[in-house]
């Protein structure tokens, strides 16, 4: 079949299946890159022939011939263009079987061919070592090296690596006199034993570059050499059917304005392997439907190419246009669902929604009366009214104070009791007065004064070194883990060791007087202040970095004053993309169950959102609303997206991250605990708090009736909360909270005290029913309403009655009143237990 015929049939396929958004796209054949720069005799550029443009490709044409308009300027080798002499030329692409037809054109500009073509250690040699894995953590990049040979991890220290290669091991690694005897070649070639195996052969480009470099005298890294400033990937995104492949190109832009094709030396990885995989050469293969990305890494820089592939469902195209929508959230979610051909689930019932909104917004079950009132109300504004009501409930403060206490690590195993209380009360006060999130962050960053009066200073009592302060500020407010960069450049991110120490140096002058940090002793009273001088030494350099917030310009290292102010400004600046995205994602996850980025504490560039435009829109909304979190919550709650049913449809069953339906999840430890108490009507007592050494102390902070979401910290003794995975608040990470169901949890529900004991109490719901002399029907209805926020279905009612009616009647008829009561009590306890152990109760849905 000729290429044009093939093109035709492709286009038809796409049009028929609606996979291309723009019908004329089949005419848009392009060569990538469209304009090519070759800046030296050793440069070359690989070419791609794609359908679409640099932004989005919907297919790649494999069998294509490229021609040069002037072979005296550039020549073609397969799909690669190489320089001959300085000048301009045009490349044309032709169908292999219809060579006369020009499918597309690209321009080339060649410069610098007269230059020496010197191999540069940084530009040429190190990328080879990185690509081949020589300097990876598993090989010579390990802290201890391998086989006595150590390289800096992924080449973050070129000068040291050059020294190691040319001077260490008595110079045997490089043999300038007899290049072929250099260990740098003989080892990876397998000519002498190499535990890392054979890495390349003699005809490889890698071998050529390394031997050329030695031949030219193993030139050391020069100061002032152009450095890579950014990467570009072509195309930026692909939309393909499962089973199809596509090549990617990676271009490096350097500080001298040059551009090079670095595809061959780029390391590729896939963010979601069930969606797309990628091979060593940058060819991706779509494996399944969904949206994922390919990460390209070169010289500690990272760029993503997005990959999307529609689900194989039959969904009428006009369904998306007709789907109900309230706000921008719905628009953007529907757009993604349309891209991926997922059918949105319909709106859930009022009963489901009232329970969902209560639990997500205030961590509390609605009472039977609250449920009834909402369900019976007929006003079209009833949902909006419920949302407003919830945002103003007192439990809103309890719930969100406890959520933010997770993020800020209020923990009695680390802090003394009075400090715990001050810290918690400070957080609570911020929630109660709805302090904007940027202001809250500023107050934490700039905290100073007494730990008993200025609760926020306890952040610095928990994190006492500049490194810890810096890492935890990043984690809490930016969702970024920068810890890797403490020892070496971050392997997954763009953060470098220098940036890490520049950031940490912002905290070098933070000091405190008073309590030193022994969690077992003292009053916990600590006064935080900021010194006028002092710097943090970067161990690898033996001197401090100029203080700077991550990628912001550095401050004057000599300037006096609180450097944290610069950090607070940068952190909360409207153009800081991390800050608003991190909090928008945290709030979103609270309501939808799955973060747009998962995990919420892992917001690195190489971990893209499942709906990037939505996360951007949410964070921009938050900025426009001046970081009023209630505005964001209101917007989320009001959306149709939030109100979708959790029942999967045939056309969205596979979806776990694009919000075509609501995803059920187990209630968090504290909320579940409180729900048990609310339904059984028996609160728990919190009288002990655990110390760091495992011993316990009495606490009088919590009066009778205190709910778990009102506890200040994670050290309060409660085997239930522990077994159900509360956040232990040892590190800043939502991942410390575990909502995974375990066997021990089930045993606790089945046989332990939490349910059985509470149901037996003289004031429990069961006792109340017995006192009231309620009928079985009444008990069933009340139990369903309080625990599941709905009426039992008629079949449930019938089947439960079938089980219980006869023994209940027998018990009633019993002549012995005590035995009769006990018999009925047992039946009601079993009924309640069955509801309180059901997944509908244990789960948010």
């Amino acid at each position, binding site marked *: 079949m000729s290429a044009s015929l093939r093109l035709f049939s492709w286009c038809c396929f796409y049009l028929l299946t609606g996979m291309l958004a723009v019908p004329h796209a089949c005419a848009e054949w392009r060569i990538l890159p469209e304009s090519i720069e070759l800046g030296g005799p050793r440069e070359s550029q690989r070419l791609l022939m794609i359908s679409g443009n640099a932004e989005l490709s919907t297919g790649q044409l494999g069998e294509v011939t490229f021609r040069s308009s002037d072979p005296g300027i550039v020549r073609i080798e397969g799909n690669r263009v190489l320089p001959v002499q300085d000048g301009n030329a045009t490349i044309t692409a032709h169908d292999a079987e219809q060579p006369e037809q020009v499918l597309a054109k690209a321009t080339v500009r060649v410069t610098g061919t007269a230059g020496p073509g010197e191999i540069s250690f940084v530009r040429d040699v190190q990328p080879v070592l990185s690509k081949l894995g020589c300097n990876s*953590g*598993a090989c010579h990049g*390990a802290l*201890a090296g391998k086989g006595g040979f150590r390289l800096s991890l992924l080449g973050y220290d070129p000068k040291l690596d050059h020294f190691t290669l040319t001077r260490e091991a008595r110079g045997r690694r490089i043999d300038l006199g007899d290049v072929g005897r250099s260990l740098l070649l003989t080892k990876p070639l397998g000519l002498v034993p190499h535990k890392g195996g054979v890495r390349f052969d003699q005809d490889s480009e890698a071998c050529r570059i390394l031997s050329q470099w030695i031949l030219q005298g193993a030139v050391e890294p020069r100061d002032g050499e152009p450095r890579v400033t950014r990467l570009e990937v072509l195309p930026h995104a692909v939309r393909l059917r499962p089973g199809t492949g596509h090549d990617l190109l990676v271009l490096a832009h350097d500080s001298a304005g040059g551009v090079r094709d670095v595809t061959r030396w780029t390391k590729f990885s896939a963010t979601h*392997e069930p969606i797309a995989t990628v091979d060593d050469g940058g060819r991706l293969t779509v494996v399944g439907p969904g949206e994922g990305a390919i990460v390209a890494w070169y010289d500690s820089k990272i760029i993503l190419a997005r990959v999307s592939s529609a689900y194989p469902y039959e969904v009428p195209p006009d369904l998306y246009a007709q789907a109900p929508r309230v706000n921008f959230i719905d628009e953007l979610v529907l757009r993604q669902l349309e891209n991926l051909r997922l059918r949105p689930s319909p709106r859930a019932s009022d009963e489901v929604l009232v329970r969902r909104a209560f639990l997500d917004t205030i961590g509390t079950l609605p009472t039977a009366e609250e449920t009834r009132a909402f369900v019976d109300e007929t006003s079209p504004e009833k949902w909006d009214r419920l949302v407003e009501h919830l945002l103003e409930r007192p439990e809103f403060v309890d719930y969100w104070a406890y959520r933010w206490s997770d993020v800020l690590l209020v923990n009695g*195993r680390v802090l003394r009791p009075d400090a715990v209380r001050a810290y918690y009360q400070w957080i609570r006060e911020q929630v109660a007065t709805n302090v904007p999130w940027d202001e809250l962050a500023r107050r934490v960053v700039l905290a100073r004064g007494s730990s008993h009066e200025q609760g926020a200073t306890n952040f610095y009592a928990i994190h006492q070194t500049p490194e810890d302060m810096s890492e935890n500020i990043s984690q809490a407010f930016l969702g970024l*883990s920068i*810890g*890797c960069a403490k020892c070496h450049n971050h392997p997954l991110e763009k953060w470098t060791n220098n940036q890490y120490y520049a950031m940490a140096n912002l905290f070098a002058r933070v000091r405190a007087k008073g309590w030193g940090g022994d*969690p077992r002793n003292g009053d916990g009273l600590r006064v935080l202040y900021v010194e006028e001088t002092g710097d943090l030494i970067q161990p690898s350099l033996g001197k401090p970095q100029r203080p700077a917030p991550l990628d912001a310009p550095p401050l004057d290292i000599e300037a006096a004053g609180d450097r944290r102010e610069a950090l607070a400004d940068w952190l909360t600046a409207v153009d800081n993309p991390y800050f608003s995205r991190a909090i928008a994602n945290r709030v979103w996850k609270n309501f939808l169950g799955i973060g747009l980025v998962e*995990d919420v*504490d892992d917001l690195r560039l190489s971990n893209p959102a499942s709906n990037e435009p939505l996360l951007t829109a949410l964070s921009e909304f938050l900025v426009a609303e001046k970081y009023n979190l209630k505005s964001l919550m209101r917007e989320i709650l009001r959306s149709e997206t939030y109100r979708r049913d*959790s*029942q999967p449809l045939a056309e969205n*069953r596979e979806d776990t991250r694009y919000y075509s339906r609501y*995803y*059920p*999840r*187990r209630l968090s430890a504290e909320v579940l605990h409180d729900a048990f108490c609310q339904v059984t009507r028996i609160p728990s007592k919190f009288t002990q708090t655990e110390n*760091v*050494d*495992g*011993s316990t102390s009495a606490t009088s902070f919590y009066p009778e009736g205190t709910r778990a979401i009102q506890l200040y910290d994670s050290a309060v003794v409660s085997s239930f909360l522990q077994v159900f*995975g509360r956040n232990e608040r*040892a*590190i800043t*990470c939502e*991942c410390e909270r*575990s*909502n*995974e*169901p*375990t*066997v021990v*949890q*089930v*045993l*606790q529900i*089945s*046989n*332990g005290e939490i349910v*059985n004991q509470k149901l037996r109490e003289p004031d429990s719901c069961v006792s109340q029913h017995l006192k009231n002399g309620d009928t079985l029907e009444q008990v069933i209805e009340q139990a369903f309403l309080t625990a599941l926020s709905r009426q039992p279905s008629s079949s*449930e009612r019938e*089947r*439960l009655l079938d*089980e*219980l009616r006869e023994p209940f009647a027998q018990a009633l008829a019993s002549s012995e009143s005590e035995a009769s009561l006990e018999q009925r009590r*047992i039946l009601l306890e*079993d*009924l309640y*237990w*069955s*509801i309180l*152990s*059901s*997944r*509908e109760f*244990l*789960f948010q*849905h």
Partner: protein
Amino acid sequence: MLRLTGQGVAHTCDGVTRRDFLEVGSLGAIGLSLTEMLAAEQAFAATEAGKSADKRSCIMIFNLGAPSQLDTFDMKPDAPAEVRGPFKPISTRSSEIQISEILPRHAEVADKFSLVRSCYHTAAAVHDAGWQMMQTGRQFTGGINYPHAGAVLSYLKGRRSDLPPFVVLPQLMGRGGGNLPNGQAGGFLGKAHDPFSLMADPSQPDFKVPNLLPPSEIGEARLDRRKRLRTIVDETVAQFEASDDARLLNENFQAAYRLMTSPQARSAFDLSLEPNHVRERYGMTRFGQCCLLARRLIEAGVRFVTINTFLTVFDEITWDIHGSKPFTSIAGMKDIVAPLYDRGYAALIEDLDQRGMLEETLVCNLAEFGRTPKVNPAGGRDHWPQCFTVYFAGGGVQGGRVIGRSDAIGAVPAERPAPPSDVVGTIFHSLGLDPKIELPGPGKRPFPLIEFGAAPIRELF
């Protein structure tokens, strides 16, 4: 080879994932019988490479307090009196091994175990640091909690009977004084892989597993009714079948019901089924009966049992022989600690051997460190992580040998130094797990089973 993704799905060579089987298993809630579920699990087991290794189990005996190498397994009879201590070495069933006279029963089974006399670690000499390193192979830094070796096995292989895959006897370690996590948990693998902790003393006459059985007022009839009622209530929520966690929860209900109602599980925990003379042979002590219970649990399908010889170093007499109050001295070790330990261990090894279970059960005896070469003025010895002895039996280990050597006073390894990562690597090796398998750490950062550069002590096998 086994490969892992961040989602914790184990892919086998033929592309079948563990989750595929879990999904099959979870159908049990809506129709599949227990037998069919077990069959699905067995099908999974059959796809694993190295089926024989899949049969392997491990009993880890953790000697809280840290025994003195010089008074137990690494005697230095030629050293000065203040080093060699009061005890004499005795010959054993192995010509290569001499051990302390306070462990006569060990001498009778010395052809079954091999000593590693050159174990060491470089962390602080506090109990908790050693606990975490010796049980996980790593020192906890940067707030990352590594998983116990048993949790790793649970994560990679799952359950193989009605019983949980990983059990701790008699309960989780208590305080160590260093305020550090003790490593006896699922760590970053999640609570789903925490050990099942017995929380009871099996030597007590009224011994039972808490929460394993319903409260006494909930008899079989009520249990059945509860199950029927719950089925009615729970059946309506079909939408949960699309949620992994909901499926896992129902799995756990199944598992809990299995535990509660399984005659196999119930009998595994029921020590009264053992003849009296067998119980006596292990010794009617907490440690002795834990050893016996461990054997029963392994027989019933548990993959990994950790026995804490003591619960904490503070409230009881342990291996922690500082000499000063409230700790015991070298003499106290001889009178109180050694006899119960010696008896329980030897009985366990003999019993496993006689039942033909030893080849498939690795028994490793670990501790957080050793003790100072010189006896202190209080007549005790203090903490010494620079050199100590651990030992292994069964699970493919050739017994009766000594690997590694300490110097003349037992102060530092003189030959084949073995850090904690090598010790834990040895456990994985015996269990047939490739140390290069990667586990998904916090932030999906991959961690190989043992640190780069670490290696199993292959000389043992």
